[in-house]
């Protein structure tokens, strides 16, 4: 039969009962919470994977550049924990400097400065002699640049995702022997 809204004989359409509405709201809430948690976890995972790939890429470039420069340098002219100055093969000064405040490692030569690393939490240079000791791979440390034959370098770069550092850090260490400098 047709239901005319103007007829007083028709029963009104049934709406939702309170219990139905509560169930619907509860189920909707659960579904939305599940979607939100899946989205958050997925986003963090994608960000962590992307961060690692980018960190790995930058760190490899940095270690390759640093290794090439140190190996080919004529000699070390100055070195501290955060800074290394070399006399490059063309005689020009080549400086690597780490800034703990900006957390960057920069390479400077002939007035041109480039940032090799960002988000670098920890960085250190160390000079060593060329005299190996029996029974150990450790080399004697020196503070005299004229005696330096080996540079030890290590750093740690990291990124955070929502305040967490998990899976987004990259550790690099290297021991580089200067090919030319002797004594």
């Amino acid at each position, binding site marked *: 039969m047709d239901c005319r809204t103007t007829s007083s004989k028709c029963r009104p359409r049934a709406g939702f009962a309170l219990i139905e509405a509560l169930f619907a709201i509860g189920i909707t809430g659960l579904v939305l919470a599940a979607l939100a948690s899946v989205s958050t*976890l997925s986003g963090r995972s994608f960000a962590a994977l992307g961060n690692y790939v980018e960190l790995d890429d930058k760190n490899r470039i940095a270690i390759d550049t640093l290794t090439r420069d140190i190996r080919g340098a004529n000699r070390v002219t100055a070195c501290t924990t955060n800074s290394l100055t070399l006399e490059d093969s063309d005689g020009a000064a080549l400086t690597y400097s780490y800034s703990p405040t900006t957390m960057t490692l920069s390479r400077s030569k002939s007035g041109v400065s480039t940032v090799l690393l960002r988000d670098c939490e920890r960085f250190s240079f160390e000079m060593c002699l060329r005299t190996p000791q029996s029974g150990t791979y450790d080399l004697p440390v020196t503070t005299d640049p004229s005696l330096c034959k080996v540079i030890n370098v290590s750093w740690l770069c990291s990124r955070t995702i929502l305040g967490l550092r998990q899976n987004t850090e990259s550790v690099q260490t290297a021991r580089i022997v200067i090919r030319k400098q002797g004594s």
Partner: protein
Amino acid sequence: MFCGRPRAVADALLEAMGLENMKLQTLTPSGLSGSAGAAGFSLLEVTVGMGVIGMTAAALFSGFTSGFFNMQMARENLRATQIMLEKTETIRLYNWSQITSNGFIPATFTEAYDPHASGTNHGIVYTGTVSIANVPFTNSYSANMRLITVRVSWRTGELDRSREFSTFVSRDGLQDYIF
């Protein structure tokens, strides 16, 4: 009159558009039991739908798990490569008598993933060996050469892994080259 019968007008329009199935269902006084078009999802549809969603979620999370595991393997592999290169670089500094004297170069070593980390959490431990052997060929200068092999082993989860790096060293070679 159209204005007096909105329901009839809507039905007529839907019919004209070939959408008879979308006509509004008339409620019977006894409730909804007579309206087949208002049916929700059947149990089979819900089951299949949940199965598809479950498989999608499982694929997503297994992809993430696999990605993180591969990332960890790549990271540890890179560190192992650095350790082997450090040892190989050090070998450049040994002279011939040090290379040929038994015990001057340590045959084993251990390294941490992050040796400069604060506290005791230095990450996984790499164990390594350095072997010095005669070269695998015979000629006039083979007595003045040695084959040095650096091998590093570690575990990623339950997986045993190792990498190896070999180089030749000769008497009066790079060690004696001083610019």
